[in-house]
C-alpha cells in the first residue's frame, strides 16, 4: 500500500481511490507504510528512521500503554502510534494522545502500582519542564512496571527551543538517563534494556535522542512483537491493596528519598555493569583515554578518523569509554578506566558540565591522579560537531599523547577554516531564511492586521507564544516582545499591562490554548479581572508539529467528531468580550482589534482568529477538487497576480505579507531598475494580497483572476459577449514613433 501523504509533496491525483482520500484526514505525514514495518518478525530487517526504530523496540518489549505529546524531533513517534492503532488494538496496547507533557508524565502512574510497562514521549527541554511536577512525584514513588520516557533532545542545529539539558532533570529527580550510540541497533537495544533497568531499580528511565538521531535512516534485525501480559485484552484482576509507600505524600516521601540512594541507585549500577550498558573499546595508547556520551560516538569517531586516531570502522588507537547511560555513573567503571592513565578527555555536550563535575569528584575521592580534560579544550556551550571535537581533540593529543603525529590534521583544519573565512569575506552577509508562514497561511493576515492597526494606534507590547504564529517575530512583521513558553503568552502580559497605558496583546495558537493557555492564561486573567487582549489563532491543528488533532479540530482520531469548542469553553469560563473573526477578513479583523485595544469595557478581551491551517486545507480540498473536475462539475479557480506595468517596485505589499508565493521578478520596463512584485504559481488564492493592497491603500497592481473550469453554456456566452465588446472598444495598440532631439 503506497499512499503516504508525504509532507513535502501533498499532491493527490484524481486517480486516488475514495478510500485513500478518506485517510488523508490527519497529520502532515502519514505513516501507513512505516506501520507495516512495525509488524516485522524475528530475523527480518527493519529499515527506517531512528524514532520509528524506537517504536518497534517498544512493541518488542511488551509495552502495555503508550502516550505522549507531539513536538520535533519526536512528533513521528506519536504520529506513527496513531497510524498503527489497528496493530495496537491487536496487542491490546492502550494509546493516549495527551493534552500536554504533564498529562503524559502522569500517565506513567500506571506503572507505580502495577506490573505494566509503559512509555511516553515528548520534546525536551520544554516538554520535560511541563512534565516535571508529575515526573518528580513519579520518581519519588518509584515504579513496579518498567516506565520509559523517550525525550527528543532539541539541542544544536535545527533546534527550536531554549538550549538546556534534560540531564538536569535526571539528576535532580533521580531518573536514569540513557544516551545511546546513534545507530539503530544501539537505540533499539537501549530501548529494550531501559524497561529492564527500570524494573530492576524501580526507577523511571529517560531515553534521550538528539535531533539527528531521531531522523537517522538505518536498519536493524527485528525480533517478534510481544503482547503485554496485562493489556486491554488481558486485564488486571483489579486494584492492588493500598500501599502508602507508593504514594508521594509524607511521610512516605522521606522514606522514598532515602530509598533512591540506598536501594534504587545501587540496583541500577549493578544492572548497568552486568548488562554492559556502557561500552569500552581498547586502544594501543594506554596512557590516555576518552570518555564520551554515547550520542556523540559517531561525531567523535569521525573527528578521531580525521586525526588518524581511528579507522572508518571504529577501530580506535586510544581507549574509549562510551557512556550509553549518562546518569547514574558507575564510579567503579570510571576509576577502572582512568587508573594508570596520564589524562582522560571527557567529551560532554552542553552546559552545565554535570559529567565533568561528577567524574572529577569520583576521581578525587578515589585518589586517582589522572588529569581530567574536558571543557578546558572544548567549548562550554553549543553543539559538538566533528569540527568542534577535532579542535579539542588536537589540543588534548598535543598535550598528553605527543607520540601521535596530528600536525597534518591540524594543518588540514586550519586550511579548511581559512578557505571558509575567505568565502565568508567574499560573500559578506547572506540573506537569512528563517521559517515563515506557508503560502496562504490563515495566521498571516492577523499579523498584517496588527501591523496596520499599530500604524494608527502606535506600537503595543506583544506577548507571543509557541507555535507557527511565532514566525511573526521574524521580519517583515517583527511582532513580539517576549516568549515565555507554550500557552504562556497571556500569563506573561498582566504586569506589563499594568505599567502602561496601552493594553498589551497576547497571541496564542489553539494548540497553546489547550496545552496550557486555558488555565495558566485565561483562568488567571479572569480571576484577576485582567484588562488585556488575547488573540487566539484557531487553525484547527497543532500545525507546527505536523498538524495533529486538537480538542477543537474538526476531526478526532477516534470517532471523527471534535470534542470541545474554544468559544463555548471561554464563555463558560466567564469571558464576556469575545469576537470570532475569519482571519482573511482583514478590515473586520482590524476593526475588531482596534475596538479591543480601545474599548472602555474592562476585563479580558478575546479575539478568535478563525482560519483552517492552509497545509491541512489544501491536503483536504485538492483531492475533492480533482474529483469534481473529473466528474465534469463547474469549478471556479481563483488566483492572484500583479500587473508588472503598474507595480512601482516599492514592495510595501511584501512588507505586509511575505507570502512565499509573492516574490520578485526583474522590472520589464527598461527605464526602471527596481524589481517588481510577482505572484508565482504556488498561489492558493487566499486573497490576502488584494485585501492588503486595499486596506493599506498601496497600489492598484493586484488583480484577482477567476478561471471557470468545466464552464457551462452561460459562462461561454458571457465570455463571448465580453470579448466582443472589449475587442470593439479596446484602444488600438500604439506603435511609438522614435523621435530624437536635434
Amino acid at each position, binding site marked *: 500500500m503506497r499512499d503516504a501523504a508525504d509532507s513535502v509533496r501533498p499532491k493527490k491525483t484524481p486517480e486516488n481511490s475514495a478510500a485513500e482520500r478518506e485517510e488523508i484526514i490527519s497529520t502532515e505525514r502519514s505513516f501507513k507504510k512505516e506501520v507495516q514495518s512495525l509488524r516485522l518478525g524475528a530475523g527480518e530487517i527493519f*529499515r527506517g528512521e531512528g524514532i520509528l526504530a524506537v517504536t518497534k523496540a517498544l512493541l518488542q518489549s511488551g509495552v502495555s500503554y503508550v502516550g505522549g505529546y507531539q513536538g520535533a524531533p519526536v512528533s513521528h513517534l506519536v504520529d506513527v502510534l496513531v497510524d498503527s492503532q489497528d496493530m495496537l488494538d491487536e496487542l491490546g496496547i492502550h494509546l493516549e494522545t495527551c493534552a500536554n507533557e504533564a498529562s503524559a508524565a502522569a500517565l506513567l502512574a500506571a506503572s507505580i502500582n502495577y506490573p505494566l510497562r509503559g512509555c511516553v514521549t515528548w520534546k525536551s527541554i520544554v516538554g520535560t519542564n511541563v512534565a516535571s511536577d508529575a515526573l518528580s512525584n513519579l520518581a519519588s514513588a518509584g515504579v513496579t512496571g518498567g516506565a520509559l520516557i523517550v525525550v527528543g533532545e532539541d539541542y544544536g542545529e535545527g533546534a527550536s527551543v531554549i538550549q538546556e539539558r534534560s540531564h538536569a532533570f535526571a539528576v535532580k529527580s533521580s531518573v536514569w538517563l540513557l544516551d545511546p550510540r546513534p545507530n539503530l541497533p544501539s537505540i533499539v537495544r537501549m530501548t529494550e534494556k531501559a524497561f529492564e533497568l527500570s524494573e530492576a531499580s524501580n526507577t523511571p528511565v529517560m531515553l534521550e535522542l538528539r535531533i539527528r538521531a531521531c531522523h537517522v*535512516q538505518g536498519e536493524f534485525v527485528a525480533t517478534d512483537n510481544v503482547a503485554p501480559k496485562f493489556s486491554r485484552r488481558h486485564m488486571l484482576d483489579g486494584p492492588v491493596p493500598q500501599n502508602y509507600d507508593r504514594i508521594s505524600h509524607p511521610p512516605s516521601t522521606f522514606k522514598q528519598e532515602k530509598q533512591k540512594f540506598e536501594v534504587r541507585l545501587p540496583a541500577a549500577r549493578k544492572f548497568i555493569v552486568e548488562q554492559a550498558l556502557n561500552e569500552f573499546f581498547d586502544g594501543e595508547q594506554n596512557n590516555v583515554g576518552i570518555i564520551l556520551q554515547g550520542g556523540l560516538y559517531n561525531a567523535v569517531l569521525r573527528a578521531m578518523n580525521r586525526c588518524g586516531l581511528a579507522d572508518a570502522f571504529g577501530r580506535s588507537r586510544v581507549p574509549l569509554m562510551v557512556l550509553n547511560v549518562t546518569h547514574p555513573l558507575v564510579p567503579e567503571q570510571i576509576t577502572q578506566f582512568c587508573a594508570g592513565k596520564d589524562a582522560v578527555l571527557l567529551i560532554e555536550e552542553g552546559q552545565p558540565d554535570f559529567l565533568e563535575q561528577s567524574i572529577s569528584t569520583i576521581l578525587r575521592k578515589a585518589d586517582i591522579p589522572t588529569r581530567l580534560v574536558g571543557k578546558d579544550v572544548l567549548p562550554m556551550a553549543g553543539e559538538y560537531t566533528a569540527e568542534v571535537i577535532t579542535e579539542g581533540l588536537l589540543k588534548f593529543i598535543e598535550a598528553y599523547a605527543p607520540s601521535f603525529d596530528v600536525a597534518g590534521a591540524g594543518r588540514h583544519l586550519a586550511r579548511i577554516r581559512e578557505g571558509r573565512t575567505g*568565502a565568508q569575506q567574499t560573500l559578506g552577509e547572506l540573506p537569512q531564511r528563517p521559517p515563515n508562514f506557508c503560502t496562504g497561511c490563515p495566521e498571516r493576515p492577523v499579523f498584517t492586521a496588527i501591523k496596520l492597526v499599530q500604524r494608527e494606534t502606535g506600537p503595543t507590547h506583544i506577548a507571543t507564544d509557541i507555535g507557527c504564529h511565532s514566525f511573526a517575530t521574524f521580519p517583515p512583521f517583527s511582532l513580539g516582545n517576549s516568549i515565555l513558553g507554550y500557552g504562556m503568552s497571556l500569563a506573561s502580559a498582566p504586569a506589563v499591562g499594568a505599567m502602561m497605558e496601552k493594553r498589551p496583546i497576547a497571541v496564542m495558537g489553539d494548540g497553546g490554548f489547550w496545552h496550557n493557555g486555558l488555565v495558566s492564561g485565561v483562568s488567571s486573567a479572569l480571576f484577576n479581572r485582567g484588562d488585556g487582549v488575547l488573540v487566539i489563532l484557531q487553525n484547527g491543528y497543532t500545525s507546527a508539529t505536523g498538524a495533529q488533532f486538537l480538542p477543537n479540530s474538526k476531526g478526532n482520531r477516534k470517532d471523527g467528531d471534535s470534542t470541545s469548542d474554544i468559544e463555548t469553553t471561554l464563555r463558560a469560563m466567564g469571558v464576556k468580550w469575545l469576537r470570532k473573526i475569519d482571519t482573511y477578513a482583514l478590515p473586520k479583523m482590524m476593526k475588531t482589534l482596534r475596538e479591543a485595544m480601545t474599548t472602555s469595557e474592562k476585563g479580558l478581551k478575546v479575539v478568535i482568529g478563525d482560519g483552517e491551517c492552509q497545509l491541512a486545507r489544501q491536503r483536504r480540498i485538492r483531492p475533492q477538487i480533482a474529483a469534481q473536475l473529473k466528474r465534469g462539475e463547474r469549478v471556479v479557480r481563483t488566483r492572484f497576480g500583479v500587473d508588472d506595468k*503598474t507595480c512601482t517596485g516599492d514592495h510595501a505589499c511584501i512588507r505586509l505579507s511575505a507570502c512565499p508565493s509573492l*516574490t520578485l521578478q526583474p522590472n520589464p520596463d527598461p527605464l526602471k531598475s527596481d524589481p517588481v512584485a510577482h505572484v508565482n504559481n504556488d498561489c492558493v488564492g487566499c486573497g490576502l494580497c488584494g485585501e492588503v493592497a486595499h486596506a493599506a491603500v498601496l497600489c492598484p497592481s493586484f488583480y484577482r*483572476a477567476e478561471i471557470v473550469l468545466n464552464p457551462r453554456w452561460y459562462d461561454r456566452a458571457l465570455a463571448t459577449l465580453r470579448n466582443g465588446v472589449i475587442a470593439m472598444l479596446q484602444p488600438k495598440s500604439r506603435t511609438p514613433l522614435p523621435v530624437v*532631439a536635434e
Partner: protein
Amino acid sequence: MTAQRPLTILIAALGGEGGGVLADWIVQAAQAEDFPVQATSVPGVAQRTGATTYYIEIFPEKRATLGEQQPIFALLPTPGDVDVMLASELLEAGRAAFNGFVTPDRTLLIASTHRVFAVAEKTAMGDGRYDPARLLDTVQARAAEHVLIDMQALAQTTGAPLNAVLLGALAGTAKLPIAREAFVNAIRAEGKSVDANLAGFEAGIQALSTPPSIAGIARPVAASDFDDTARPIIELGVARLLDYQNPAYAQLYLDRLQRVRDVERTAGGDGSLLREAARQLALRMAFEDVIRVAQFKIEPGRFERVRHEVRADPDAPLVVIDYFKPGIEELCSLLPGALARPILRLSEKRGWLGKVYVGMHVRSNSVFGFLRLRLLSSLRWLRPRSHRYAQEQALIETWLSAVERATAVDRALAREIVDLARLIKGYGDTHARGVRSFTRIMQAIVVPALAGTMPASVAIDALANARVAALADPEGNRLDESLASIAAAAPVQAKAAE
C-alpha cells in the same frame, strides 16, 4: 584493500522542495547497490519554507566484501569533508560555501542557478536582491568541480519536480558508484508521480551533456550598462510619453533634456548626466495617476498576459478583478487646481486625508467594468488641466533647475541630484512618502549646496547617504538620522572649507 572513508553528500533545499524525497532516492539507490548508507536531516520547523539540509554518507564498498565490518557514519556534515554538494537554489549554494561545505580539494557542487528570494531581499523598498554574480563567482571558485544549471527552468519545461532534475544531474556526473538504473528504480519504487520524476531525471542527465554554462543567467541591469549615446534611452522616453499623453508632452520632454545636454556640454561632461537624466525625467513625467492605471488595466494584450500568468486554458472563461481604492487626493488630482485646492484644504482640516477612500473591486473584463475603465482612460485630455499635473510639473522644474545649476558647480553633484528623482514613485502612501523624502533632502542638502553654504564634496556624500537612508525604512527613521547628522556636521564643514 578497503576504502578509507565514506562518500559524503549534503543536500541544501528549502522546506517543501522535496529535499527529503531526493535524499530517500539516493539512499534507496545506494542500498540497492549493496553499499552501506546512512541519511540524517533536521526537518523541525524548517519545513515551513526555511532553509534546511539533508546529509547522506555512503561507504563505497559493497557490504558483501566488508563482512562484519560496519562503517561508522557521521550524523552531521563537516566542513572540508563534503564530496557532493547538491543545492536546489543559488543562494543556498552560496550558503553552503559560506559554511565551509564547498571546498576546492574535493567538492563537486551541483546547483540550480535560479533564485528564490529571501524575505529580506523582497521587502527592500528598492532593489534588495543579493548580487547573483557574486554568488556564482564564489561558488565556482570554491568548488573542485561544478554543475550550475537553471534546473527550475528545466523542471518547468519538462513538468517535473526540481528534485528529480537534481537527481538526474547527480547521476549524470557519475561521481557516485551508483548506476543510473538504480536511481531510476528508486524513483519507480517510491511510486509517486513516477513519469514526471523520470522526465525530470532524464532532463537532469541531458543537461550535463551540454557543457555547463552560466551565460544564460540574468545579471541586473545597471545604469552604467548603457551605450555611450543617450539616444536609445531618449527614444524609450519619447515613446513612453507619447503613450502617456501626446506629442506635445513628448516634445516638452525633449526640450527639457536639451537644457541638460547644453549645461553638461558647457561643463565638459561626457554625456552620462544626460543619459541618466533622460531616464529619470521620462519616469517623472509619466507619473502614475488614476488615468494611467485605467489605461494599463485595459491595454491590448493585458488579459492575455493574465491568462498566461495564471495558467488558464485559452478558452476557459476568465474574470479579472482589479482592486482600486482611490482616496480624496487621487480624486482631486483629476480636478483643476481651483476646485481641488479648497476640497483638499477642507479634507485636511477635517482629518479626512489618508482616511477616506472609495474601495472598488472592478471586474475589468466584464462589459460594465471595462467601460468604466475605458471612460476613465479617455480622460487624458483633462490631465494637463489637473491639480496633480501642476504639482508634478512644479516638482520636476525644481529638480531640473537644481540639476542645471549644480552642473555648473560640480558634475558629480548634479548626478546625485538626478538620482534623487528615484525617490518619487508609485501611488498613495508610497508616492506621498517619496515626495516628502525628496523635498526634505532638497531643503537640507541641495539648497545649501547651491547657495554655497555647503561644500560640494560634502553635499555629494550627504546626498548619497540620504538617498539610501530614505529607502531604508518606510517610517523615515533612517532619513531623520541621516539629515540630523548632516545638520549637526554642517557648521563645522562650512568652517573647515573656508
